[in-house]
């Protein structure tokens, strides 16, 4: 199994979720994160005090998939999350050695 971690623009979450479920992936975990990168942030000014906000709101989508489905998933995510604008985000793939479904104790692919 692999863990696919995608950092995307917040308003793209719904599209990404649909793209993944269309592949038959039935679960994912998302986190509100802040991202720093090529996309520049903005400046806020409060009574003359300027604060550069260089971290922008992003959504991290984590989905663990059977190794076989990694390609399709990467594809789907990229297509769904892409706007072509700077700041679209990244996708990272890393290994998962073992998975357990807490409710049933099922393991690995059966746990997904």
């Amino acid at each position, binding site marked *: 199994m692999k863990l696919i971690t995608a950092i995307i623009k917040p308003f793209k979450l719904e599209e990404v979720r649909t793209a993944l479920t269309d592949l038959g992936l039935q679960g994912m975990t998302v986190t509100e994160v802040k991202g720093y990168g090529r996309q520049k942030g903005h400046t806020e*000014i*409060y*009574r*003359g005090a300027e*604060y550069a906000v260089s971290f922008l709101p992003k959504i991290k989508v984590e989905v663990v998939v059977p190794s076989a489905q990694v390609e399709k998933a990467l594809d789907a995510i990229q297509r769904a999350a892409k706007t072509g604008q700077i700041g679209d985000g990244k996708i990272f793939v890393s290994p998962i050695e073992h998975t357990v479904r807490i409710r049933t104790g099922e393991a690995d692919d059966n746990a997904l």
Partner: protein
Amino acid sequence: MNFNGLKRIAASACTAAALYAGSALPSLAQDAAPTLDTGDTAWMLTSMCLVLMMSIPGLALFYGGMVRKKNVLSVLMATFATICLLTVLYVVVGYSMAFTEGGEYNSYIGGFSKVMLAGVGKESLTGTIPELVFMCFQMTFAIITPALIIGAIVDRMKFSALLIFMSVWMLVVYVPVCHWVWGGGFLANDGVLDFAGGTVVHINAGIAGLVACLVLGRRTGYGNESMAPFNLVLTLIGASLLWVGWFGFNAGSALGANTTAGVAMTTTQIATAMAALAWMFSEWLVHGKPSLLGVASGAIAGLVAITPACGFVDPKGALVIGAAAGVGCYIMSTGVKKALGYDDSLDVFGVHGVGGIIGAILTGVFAVEAYGGKAGLLEGNFAQVPIQVYGVLATVVWCAVATFVILMILKYTIGIRVSEAAEVEGLDVALHGESIQ
């Protein structure tokens, strides 16, 4: 007799306008024993509620929304606890020292004849309202003034030191200055005009704030870390309630539901709106964006500046005073503060000090005889502006010196600043064991 006369002075200081225009408060104008007017009393009961609402939740939220999340509750706590402590102190001794005959020292401070409200009976009147209502109304001024200082010392002052400072400051700074201007003291006799407290309340709090933030030093991380406001929604609620409540403060200072109250309400509304716009457009020009914090700050600046003038000037004067306050306070609270580098955290000096001084002086310029009974510079009375300046200076000097001494004594006894660890953790948890989720 003396006693009644004194009360009348006390009242008349507040209602100079009414008196000179000579009729709005008939029972004061003539010497016959005053009788209770239910309409005046209704408005003063309401005004007391409005001014209390300015402090809690008004001021507490206005300040609370501007600090970082980890300190919000500590700001609300400082304000609320101050209100409670000073209420008791004012009843016990403050009112007496502010509004009774001080004997040979009367030019500077009142006496102790009304300690614990002795002799302030149910039926005793001040003008056309029960003296107890007058006392409650004055109390709300005495408790909000020290509370205003909190904006300068947020995020770093010890709670115990804060309570002691507030108590001593009210008795040593606020009460005397109040007596000088409204209690028959020397500034009243010298003809200083301060309809609702530009000098007594705002210059006083503003100067004390400046001294306090200098003695305390800057917040840890000031200039490096982001100290962006946690939630300006709270600040907006606070500013709005301050604005609404301020009609109790200004129109209430007419001590009755009379034409002077109408003038004060009108000039207050105009100056506030104008100042908010002035700050907003200045900012828009300079930084390219109009901000909520800016327009709200401008409104407060306008409320402050019109306070001494509201019963003396006409609508045109109010427009100018508002515009001047909006621009003046904007410059002081942004550019100048940055340049000088002091950490008047929430701009108590920049808004209340500066706004109060602008208002006090312009009152001498724009006073209109037909409205407040006093002519100003524009009507050819060249004497008034110098008198106003003199009133400002007297207050600034006394307030600065006394505030400095009080804080120094506290600093070298119990200490006035929390540990850096506490500052980093945040005062909500460190001082009060509470937090916002």
